[in-house]
């Protein structure tokens, strides 16, 4: 198997116009090929009216490139980019709900929280809520550590990622606005 054919985790960053229905337009491109989306996040960007979709999928590069080309064809998509893990900085946030009793019994949980760079964001007589930001691996580590104390509820956000590239969103969009490629034109060469 070549690198191209090996399935691995990729992060997709899709810049779009902020329009209703776009989430559906995007996800049907994946579901049509029966590709599972590991995580998904939609957020606003520094440019008004522009949204950023961040998706994590496990796929072969070759397959994913075809998907990305189809995403770029969507009328309201401004740009779509695929990143390897080492091309981005990324984080996920996880919340854990643990019984307060477990916390009171000994100092173990407090120690776990401190050692894992997590923090307690709520505490009442029934339960405590712990928050941890990091990679999926890191939040999972804390999950495993808390598991013996009984986790009432666990939730993890989609990945948010920022690329290491020098591109500025605003400049990218300006370039699109000034592009002549909406008209039939031939670049001189």
């Amino acid at each position, binding site marked *: 198997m070549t690198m191209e054919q090996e399935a691995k985790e990729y992060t997709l960053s899709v810049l779009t116009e902020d329009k209703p229905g776009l989430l559906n337009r995007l996800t049907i491109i994946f579901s049509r090929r029966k590709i599972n989306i590991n995580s998904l996040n939609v957020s606003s960007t520094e440019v008004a009216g522009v949204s950023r979709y961040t998706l994590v999928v496990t796929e072969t590069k070759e397959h994913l*490139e075809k998907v990305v080309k189809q995403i770029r*064809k969507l*009328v309201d998509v401004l740009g779509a980019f695929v990143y390897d893990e080492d091309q981005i900085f990324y984080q996920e946030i996880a919340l854990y709900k643990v019984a307060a009793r477990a916390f009171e019994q000994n100092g173990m949980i407090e120690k776990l929280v401190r050692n894992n760079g997590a923090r307690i964001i709520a505490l009442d007589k029934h339960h405590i809520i712990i928050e941890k930001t990091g990679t999926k691996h890191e939040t999972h580590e804390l999950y495993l550590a808390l598991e013996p104390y009984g986790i009432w509820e666990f939730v993890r956000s989609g990945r948010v990622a920022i690329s290491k590239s020098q591109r500025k969103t605003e400049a990218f969009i300006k370039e699109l606005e000034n*592009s*002549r*490629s*909406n008209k039939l034109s*031939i670049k001189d*060469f």
Partner: protein
Amino acid sequence: MEAIVEIEEKKKTVAGSESVLKCLLEENVDTIFGYPGGAIMPVYDSLYKYENKLNHVLTRHEQGAVHAAQGYARSSGKVGVCFATSGPGATNLITGIADAQIDSTPLVCITGQVASHLLGSDAFQETDIIGISMPVTKWNFQVTSAEEIPYAISRAFYIAASGRPGPVLIDITKNAQQELMEFDYKPCEKIRSYQPYPDIDGNKIIEASKLINEAKKPLVLVGQGVTLSGAENEFKAFIQKAGLPVASTLLGLSALSTKHPLYVGFTGMHGNYGPNLKTNECDLLIAVGMRFDDRVTGDVKTYAKQAKVIHIELDPAEIDKNVKTNVAINADAKQALKLLTPLVDERSHEKWLKEFSACDDAENEKVKSEALFPNKGELKMAEVIHRISQVTEGKSIVVTDVGQHQMVASRYYEFDQKKSNITSGGLGTMGFCLPAATGAKLGAPKRQVIAIIGDGGFQMTVQELGTIMQYDIDVKILILNNSFLGMVRQWQELFFERRYSFTEMVNPDFVALAKSYNISAQKVTERKELNTAIDGWLSTEGPALLEVIVEKEENVFPMVPAGSSVSDVRLE
């Protein structure tokens, strides 16, 4: 302050429903195919006043309307327009929209929708047509207030017709049709998130010209992209200068005359022997405006592996999708060819061309002589097509349905004029032909339109005989009747040990059926009657139907069985 508000209100003089029609006139629409119903009634009511400006054709089913709009678009080169109501009206459009999407046909479909306060409530005839049509449209949009109508329709026409064309659906709620608005129309010229014409990379043009100038056994595949960009002349100049043999895809037929000395035939599953075989012997494959459909490539793992590949294609998503290219020119065919032709050397490839002739000889001996000139037995589809081709001198618009008759018509009709081939290629929609032919005639009224249909597909949209009758649309209809779903039967014979599972049909009296619609009709069963019948049928004034009873279990050859290599093209 109040006075200002009053003035503002006074400007609102046009109902949303009327503004829909005004927008269509701004986009130079002259013909609409449609079917009324509750949620689109305001638009139809406005249409009553516009009867002398817009020609509305009432089809007999919404599927008929959308296929007719497709036929109209393909014969005229304009955007096809259709109307339908909400719910079932809208869902009945879906097959045609999907067909237009896969075959790159520009359409604007306008559907009525329940009032916006009822959206999502399962109101009468409410369906989420935006959700349903999303995967099969190039773009769609729901209008919920009258003000949005010009914006939506101007975008719709721009998106449908530019770049790689495709269908667009605009869903308009009933309240938006009834509200008053101030009408102001500006055609859409740019959408920042939509870049339909990429800048051409000059280096790719130079690289391609080098490969062409070095090639010893080049083969060109012409697709519908050439027709869609109106590049027939540029294409001819290109292949003539470089002396390149040309094979055509199904939708590429008629982009180059079949009589051109460099035309070597139709390629793909039931294409000619030479183009299929030589694809795996050429040293350079030049694909122009086509997308390497699996019906063209057979098994891609064994497709043209020995050759370098140049792909001229407007849609970047098609590049490297099915076949990896050495040089990809992401451009409109006309622009790319204009740049490429000056850089190619004047050459000829006589020896290589002769190899195609040798393949033709083999195909003639094994297939064509028997198919075209049988002197005994039942009538064959090919001889019927051949006669029609001769009588019309290859100058008619040929609209076909899907199946054996489609492959036979594509093989034996000798297209000699551009924009003459209208068929359902990618989706393979049975029932496409009859309505598409009516639309094609209205889109090209000066040309003769021949609808070639099997007995199965004819019955899928047979109701459109009513449309032909009402508007006296001059379509010449040929039914090649073998009382079978012939192509499925052929596969059952070849790959399912002749288990003819539900492919035999008991058919009605097609002649009597046509006559009940006041359409002149005739049936032929004997070879000796054929030529006279065809001549009479084609020279009839107005619509006419000819039913020809053909051999029941005839197979179409050559054939590249599904999933096989094009090298394994079978002659028998």
